[in-house]
């Protein structure tokens, strides 16, 4: 048995195929193909959730993705649990666990329901107004409370064990929606020879044919025609049909995002299958056949369980074989709801009455109702309902204030007409236009190569829809070069043409009322809330939306938009198009993070770059730090050492013996060509024509505005070849910057740029014993002090492999940087280490490198500079050529602000108490007793304990700093004020003699 309300002979599911699931712990039976909504209704369960704000009992409103009420928590196991699933779109699988949400202690008795009684205090904008004061309470009291009280589902806490796939696809014509319109368009395009992708969010194609059983196409039952057409399309080589796939986002240049739900409906999915697959489709043309969504009626207490859209009840009957009630009322402003009553009546359900707020419904439906013996009350309205956990009666009154009578019912179907789904069209940046005659927003001006067909285009009538769709399919196929195909013709018949529809509040929920007539069920927005928003001064629909939250969350205007607009229009006394429509944003329906990030998680979230010596460093206990994507050895703690101990030891060892440092991450660019020297002169502030082959120079690169952009040592290998190094993080942008100038400003120069960062492994050997370590390993280069002085470069061999050997130093010690092809990096490192270790040298990491360079006042671009520092500010004037007539930044350096007195300049800071280490980023003031706001002179850029100096050292940017040498300044901290003395930037070996050792 799959539910007492399943009617034999109705629906398309197979009675023999059953599935079991639990809802709030109770076991229910379903049929294969059921949604959670249809299965619950089959078992007579209407109460499914509690509303967001007032915790009102809610049922199932719809049979589609527009569902605002029946949001449930679905799980397969503890880790595979998803909150806020819309019950009408989740298929049941055997063993599924379903929980209701937003209720405590139980769905039927919910403490939070007290909010409903307190609702006069919870009007629209309540949070904005109430939780303003005191300000401090927001973070500690209000926000945690609101967060706890609000929200529907609870996020899972375990990692998602499923995997997700991603696919790119191209096609001539993408058709979104596989109802009559989409199938017709896809068929026409496919038969014309176009490459077609047809997508539909439901498990089967058919769209409205799921419920509309009165349709015949080419003499065949509509739904059967749809399945046969899909089968035919699937068999064609040029067609891809994707069901359970939502076109959720329409982006630039016909780029459409689809999400395919692969396993969510399967009881035991194959582990190899992805749970979902993201399709990124680039379509030459797009056909939107997204249909329309039925609107509810806005009247007092229109949200009780058992009250639902007429088309939904028809879907549950005709597709799932489920009667939503035994005695059903209908409240409508549209002919379409009559057909729901007819189908239910023929299936044996009592129709209490059709209450039509129009005086003149369509004559055909009226005649049919009479024939079936259904009472129709025209010019009447439902003005209220009763029933705690399910609707039990409707109050019906003649329009204009006649006396009301209660009619007992157990379900109420409603329809205020149909809203074209222009979501994707709007996302494509198309402009909608208001059609006053039909009261609909329809596609107006197209921004991209797409066409809307069928009811999303406002096309009424089956044959008109078919003809429009076939023509569009053919046109789009032709537009993409497919001319020689077969022409398709189809003939459709339907029982009734629908008329009618209304927007806004119905009888008894008008301007002077305070009843709860819901416009947006999910966000608990009533008609009166929209009126309040207008009264409080929100006159733009965008403001009204944000003040009331109407149409937010998953609704995205599917149900609430048109009613909200109509109510605002009435209060403002302005026509609907004058108020405007909110812009629809992607996604059309919620998309999981899993689908969007696909494989980009864990280790694949962000690739790690490792140097050729990484394995050795790891084996020798290095602790790594992230520098951009690089993993860099930070320090090498020995057993029992803290970071501080290790860094102090490394600092001592380098200055007293020697150290090995992995500098492979430095950016490297090979600048080659007859005009290389001219180009270097333009890109760097220095004069390169005076640099002889075999020599190196520290270069500074500026932006055109005169600020330091990058720095690095440049070696000249020959007249036409420079080996340029950049900062680790700066390599790509320096390359881009150089290419920009070379290609667009100086294209006449014969220069070629090649990034060689990953081609060279770089081993820095620094310290008094550096030469002793390297000498026996180097071949073909005389590395004696005389032949190979500081700032030299030579090519030769080391350990039998080619090397570019630099004599240079970022430590202030005599030092070398050994460049070898990356593949030999670790072998050469090990050979050098084998000599270095017995001599008492150590391997050191980036932290020691930072301390040693700071002891010498060598800056790090991006740490000691921040994009507002000139070479002069950084005491690097010596590196700016005064003879050159052009280089990038030459004019910027002369800007009035850059030559002004009192600019922030880099200086050294020595704390009065040598044991106090300043915090980097700390502010500096002249007068610590100045009342707030204090005049801040600058900030600390680098600060370390210097083991070699036996005290702390710091670099800082200080206004007019170079004129303050010897002055005492102050660094105010939360717990104390630290006195510092301004010094020069060199703390070790001020004369620089050690470099030449």
């Amino acid at each position: 048995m799959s539910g007492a309300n399943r009617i034999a002979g109705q629906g398309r599911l197979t009675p023999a195929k059953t599935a079991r699931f639990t809802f709030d712990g109770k076991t229910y039976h379903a049929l294969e193909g059921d949604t959670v909504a249809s299965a619950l209704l089959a078992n007579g369960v209407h109460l499914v959730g509690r509303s967001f704000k007032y915790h009102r009992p809610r049922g199932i409103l719809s049979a589609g993705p527009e569902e605002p009420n029946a949001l449930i928590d679905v799980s397969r196991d503890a880790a595979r649990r998803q909150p806020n699933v819309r019950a009408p779109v989740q298929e049941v699988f055997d063993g599924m666990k379903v929980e209701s949400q937003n209720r405590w202690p139980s769905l039927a008795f919910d403490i939070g329901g007290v909010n409903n009684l307190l609702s006069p205090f919870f009007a629209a904008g309540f949070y904005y107004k109430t939780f303003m004061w005191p300000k401090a309470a927001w973070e500690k009291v209000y926000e945690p409370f609101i967060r706890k009280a609000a929200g529907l589902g609870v996020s899972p806490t375990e990692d998602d064990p499923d995997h997700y796939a991603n696919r790119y696809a191209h096609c001539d014509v993408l058709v979104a929606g596989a109802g009559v319109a989409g199938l017709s368009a896809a068929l026409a395009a496919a038969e014309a020879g176009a490459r077609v992708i047809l997508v539909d969010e439901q498990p089967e194609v058919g769209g409205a044919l799921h419920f509309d059983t009165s349709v015949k196409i080419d003499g065949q039952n509509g739904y059967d025609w749809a399945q046969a057409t899909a089968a035919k399309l699937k068999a064609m080589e040029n067609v891809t049909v994707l069901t359970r796939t939502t076109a959720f986002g329409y982006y630039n240049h016909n780029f459409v995002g689809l999400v395919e739900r692969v396993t969510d409906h399967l009881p035991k999915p194959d582990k190899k299958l992805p749970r979902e697959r993201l399709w990124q489709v680039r379509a030459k043309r797009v056909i939107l056949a997204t249909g329309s969504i039925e609107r509810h009626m806005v009247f007092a207490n229109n949200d009780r369980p058992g009250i639902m859209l007429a088309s939904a009840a028809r879907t549950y009957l005709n597709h799932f074989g489920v009667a939503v009630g035994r005695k059903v009322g209908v409240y409508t402003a549209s002919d379409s709801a009559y057909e729901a009553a007819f189908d239910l009546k023929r299936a044996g359900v009592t129709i209490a009455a059709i209450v039509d707020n129009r005086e003149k419904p369509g004559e055909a439906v009226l005649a049919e109702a009479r024939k079936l013996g259904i009472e129709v009350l025209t010019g009447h309205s439902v003005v209220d309902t009763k029933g705690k956990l399910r609707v039990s009666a409707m109050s019906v009154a003649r329009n204009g204030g006649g006396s009301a009578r209660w009619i007992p019912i157990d379900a109420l179907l409603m329809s205020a007409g149909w809203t074209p789904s222009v979501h994707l069209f709007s996302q494509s940046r198309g402009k909608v236009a208001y059609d006053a005659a039909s009261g609909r927003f329809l596609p107006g001006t197209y921004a991209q190569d797409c066409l809307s067909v069928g009811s999303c285009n406002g096309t009424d009538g089956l044959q008109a829809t078919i003809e429009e769709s076939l023509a569009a399919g053919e046109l789009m196929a032709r537009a993409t070069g497919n001319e020689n195909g077969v022409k398709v013709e189809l003939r459709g018949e339907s029982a009734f043409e629908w008329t009618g529809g209304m927007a806004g509040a119905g009888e008894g929920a008008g301007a002077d009322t305070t009843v709860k007539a819901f416009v947006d069920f999910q966000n608990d927005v009533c008609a009166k809330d929209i009126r309040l928003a207008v009264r409080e001064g929100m006159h733009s629909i965008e403001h009204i939306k944000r003040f009331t939250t109407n149409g937010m969350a998953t609704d995205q205007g599917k149900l609430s938009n048109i009613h909200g607009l109509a109510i605002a229009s009435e209060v403002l006394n302005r026509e609907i198009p004058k108020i405007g429509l909110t812009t629809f944003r992607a996604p059309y329906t919620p998309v999981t993070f899993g689908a969007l990030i696909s494989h980009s998680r864990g280790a694949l979230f962000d690739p790690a770059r490792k140097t050729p010596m990484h394995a050795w460093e790891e084996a020798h206990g290095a602790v790594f730090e992230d520098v951009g994507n690089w993993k860099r050895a930070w320090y090498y703690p020995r057993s029992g050492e803290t970071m501080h101990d290790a860094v102090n030891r490394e600092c001592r060892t380098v200055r007293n013996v020697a150290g090995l440092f992995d500098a492979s991450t430095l950016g490297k660019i090979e600048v080659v060509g007859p005009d290389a020297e001219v180009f270097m002169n333009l890109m760097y502030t220095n004069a390169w024509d005076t640099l002889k082959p075999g020599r190196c120079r520290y270069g500074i690169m500026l932006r055109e505005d005169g600020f330091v952009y990058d720095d690095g040592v440049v070696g000249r290998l020959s007249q036409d070849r420079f080996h340029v190094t950049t900062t680790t993080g700066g390599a790509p942008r320096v390359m881009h910057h150089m290419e920009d100038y070379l290609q667009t400003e100086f294209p006449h120069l014969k220069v070629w740029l090649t990034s060689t960062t990953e081609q060279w492994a770089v081993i820095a050997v620094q310290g008094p014993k550096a030469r002793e370590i390297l000498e026996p390993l180097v071949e073909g280069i005389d590395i004696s002090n005389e032949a190979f002085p500081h700032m030299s470069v030579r090519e030769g061999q080391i350990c039998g492999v080619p090397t570019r050997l630099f004599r240079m130093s970022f430590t202030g010690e005599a030092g070398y940087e050994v460049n070898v092809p990356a593949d030999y990096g670790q072998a050469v490192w090990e050979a050098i280490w084998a000599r270095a270790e017995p001599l008492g040298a150590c391997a050191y990491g980036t932290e020691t490198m930072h301390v040693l360079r700071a002891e010498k006042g060598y800056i790090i671009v991006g740490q000691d500079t921040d994009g507002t520092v000139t070479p002069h500010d950084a005491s690097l004037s010596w590196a700016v050529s005064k003879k050159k007539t052009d280089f990038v930044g030459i004019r910027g350096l002369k800007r009035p602000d850059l030559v002004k007195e009192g600019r922030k300049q880099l200086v050294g800071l020595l704390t009065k108490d040598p044991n106090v280490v300043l915090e980097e980023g700390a502010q500096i003031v002249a007068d610590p007793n100045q009342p707030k706001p204090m005049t801040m002179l600058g900030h600390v850029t680098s600060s370390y304990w210097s083991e070699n100096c036996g005290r702390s050292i710091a670099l800082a940017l200080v206004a007019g700093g170079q004129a303050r040498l010897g002055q005492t300044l102050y660094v105010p901290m939360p717990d104390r004020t630290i006195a510092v003395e301004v010094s020069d930037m060199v703390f070790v070996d001020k004369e620089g003699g050690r470099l030449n050792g």
Partner: protein
Amino acid sequence: MLLIYCPYCEEERSELEFRHGGDAHIARPTNIADVTDEAFEEYFFLRDNPKGLIFERWRHIHGCGRFFNAARDTVSDKFYLTYKAGEPKPVIPGVSPATEKTVETYEATEGTAK
């Protein structure tokens, strides 16, 4: 995601392969060291923010690496054409240059909202 025609590769490629490079047809003064503050400000700092037609630079950074120019509509993101660096600013048939100098407000960019 935009689809951009690289005039060097002679094919349309995804936006992921490109990097935007700011306004096109702004030449660096050949005597840059000698220009006035005003001329330097105009060259380096001041840019229009047109609603409609814009000429801009792109680089096929993850492709051929070349810089090129494009004529694009800033409202619809439609590319009228792309062309090689160094070629003169083209006339786009039927498209007049944007008249509004700067566009800052929501109303101006979205047009219809009031």
